[in-house]
């Protein structure tokens, strides 16, 4: 085995530029696959963290009629907040949110929005509810930066808001933007405004009522009050998970193209080697090597390409990937405009498992691709091979 390994290294380095071309192409594959997967991992982690911090909490209780994909459900989706949660709400561990529809008139334009009421005492979500406490305005409002940009609103702006109360009667008032928050989660930003919960309850004629209850870090112990349904964190994050899965599946196409290019080069090299090195093959067998040992030698030579590629990729890849992991990659808000939870900068996450599986996968593929043409050796006649006759 040691001899085979030595021979394989010698033959590989002896092939010169041909070997290095293969190794360089394969190292690109290593690097791009690890980088792409790392980027998706980074996005996944960031999106999940942002969703939990800004929207979902660790789970939510929904009023039984509430369906976020059906705005019609909002008319009926409100109930008294269950008294069992009173202590947790006071502590800020549960954030009750009341949701209704309304219309604002920024700069004389009509704009349908969601009005969401949230308690200033809550500590579950990152929404700066404490700003409500500092405001003396009749109807203070917090909006996200996208909402502000889309409607030309800025802190201190006053505009008319119109809504319908619990009975369906129109009401209107002047609202004042007291703060603009910046978030990566468009579903708490676009097309909505945040007002103090008690104020919205009063506006709607729904005292003590809420549409959803966002949970913080506490154990619900499986208790779901009557008239409410519990949605776990995984259920609430399913959209993000599905998008990442879809992106990962799309990435496979890229991996296949990259790997095909590298494997084609290796396959071609192997075929050429077997064709050009027939005398050598005959000599090995004449000197006492079995056919399978010779097949093993050629397979080893081929698969060592991936080892050299892994080493080369480590040389220039580790600094590059490390740099990106610390500096991040800027998406400059393009994806956010499509409603995706994407930070302005994504920091790729490279786990040991990711690197190890990528190396194993590439090595395995290279070995198989190296072995396939080498099987011809087993059918060669040693005497003919020694004469260098084409077989």
């Amino acid at each position: 085995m040691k001899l085979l390994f030595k021979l394989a290294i010698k033959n590989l380095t002896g092939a010169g530029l041909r070997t290095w071309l293969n190794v360089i192409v394969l190292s690109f594959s290593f690097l791009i696959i690890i980088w792409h997967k790392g980027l998706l991992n980074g996005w996944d982690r960031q999106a999940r963290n942002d969703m939990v911090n800004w929207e979902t909490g660790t789970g939510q209780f929904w009023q039984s009629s509430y369906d976020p994909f059906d705005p019609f459900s909002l008319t009926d989706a409100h109930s008294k907040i269950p008294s069992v949660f009173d202590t947790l709400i006071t502590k800020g561990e549960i954030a009750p949110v009341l949701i209704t529809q309304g219309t604002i008139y920024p700069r004389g334009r009509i704009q349908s929005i969601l009005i969401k009421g949230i308690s200033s005492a809550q500590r579950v979500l990152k929404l700066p509810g404490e700003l409500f406490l500092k405001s003396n305005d009749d109807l203070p409002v917090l909006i996200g930066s996208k909402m502000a940009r889309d409607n030309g609103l800025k802190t201190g702006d006053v505009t008319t808001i119109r809504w319908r109360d619990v009975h369906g009667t129109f009401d209107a008032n002047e609202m004042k933007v007291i703060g603009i928050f910046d978030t990566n989660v468009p579903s708490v930003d676009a097309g909505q405004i945040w007002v103090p919960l008690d104020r919205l309850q009063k506006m709607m004629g729904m005292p003590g009522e809420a549409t959803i209850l966002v949970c913080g870090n506490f154990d619900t112990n499986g208790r779901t009050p009557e008239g409410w349904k519990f949605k776990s964190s995984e259920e609430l994050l399913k959209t993000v998970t599905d998008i990442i899965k879809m992106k990962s599946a799309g990435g496979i196409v890229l991996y296949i193209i990259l790997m095909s290019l590298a494997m084609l080069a290796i396959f071609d090299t192997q075929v050429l080697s077997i064709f050009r090195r027939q005398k050598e093959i005959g000599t090995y067998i004449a000197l006492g090597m079995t056919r399978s040992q010779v097949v093993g030698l050629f397979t080893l030579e081929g698969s060592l390409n991936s080892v050299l590629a892994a080493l080369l990729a480590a040389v220039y890849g580790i600094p590059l990937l490390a740099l990106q992991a610390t500096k991040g990659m800027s998406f400059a808000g393009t994806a956010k405009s499509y409603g995706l939870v994407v930070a302005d900068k994504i920091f790729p996450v490279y786990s040991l498992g990711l690197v190890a599986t990528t190396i194993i996968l590439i090595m395995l593929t290279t070995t198989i691709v190296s072995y396939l043409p080498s099987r011809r050796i087993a059918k060669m006649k040693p005497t003919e091979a020694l004469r260098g006759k084409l077989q």
Partner: protein
Amino acid sequence: MRKIAIPIILLIILLSVSLNAQNPSAREIIEKVDNNMSAVSRVFTSKMIIHNPRNTRTVESRSWSMGENKSFTEYLSPPREQGTKMLKLDNLLWIFSPSTDRIIQISGHMLRQSVMGSDLSYEDMMEDPHLLNHYTGKVDGEEKTGDRNCWVITLTATSTGVAYQTQKIWVDKDHFIPLRKELYAKSGVLLKRMELSDVLRIQGRWFPKKMLFKDVLKEGEGTEFQIMDIEFNVKIPDYIFSKASLKK
């Protein structure tokens, strides 16, 4: 003394009766307005001219309505909207679009949205509410609207669920048609203004053929609603108010 007192008392009674005859109560005025404006059923062709800050669009439609809760509208023009149909039954509205060949249902807050960027909501366009069923009135005084003498009446909602808590209407003293309307939110904020004109006698009642709606919170010059022809209390087949008629 007795001979003088009796005629004086009689005169006072007579005067008060005659004054009351000249000043009908708010309820009487609203009742007369309802008699003119509302009907068991209505079939009309209308033209809606929407004045947006950038352009003006005209939409023609034919509508059938029965009472307060059933209404059906079909757009006749422009070509892009031709064939679009809307059916409203109570608080539910279905819209059929021929370009997509699909029926979509809207309800709740969506009914309060503007129709094709106009100043009318689906409710405004398709409902025919009897004021007396939902409001109580108070005569605030008299005012001239254009060259017409009007009663100014403030209507306050008596039932929950009405869109506007308060309305102020200027009712023509002779024709009992509101020539001006102001619709207010619960907080007292003015939301919409309507001006009604071209009052004609149709089938024994007075009716305005032109209405100008203005959402005062929104920019623009408002939306004109012109009645081209109208028939009251005609028999409308039941199938008109069915979902099947949307795709016919």
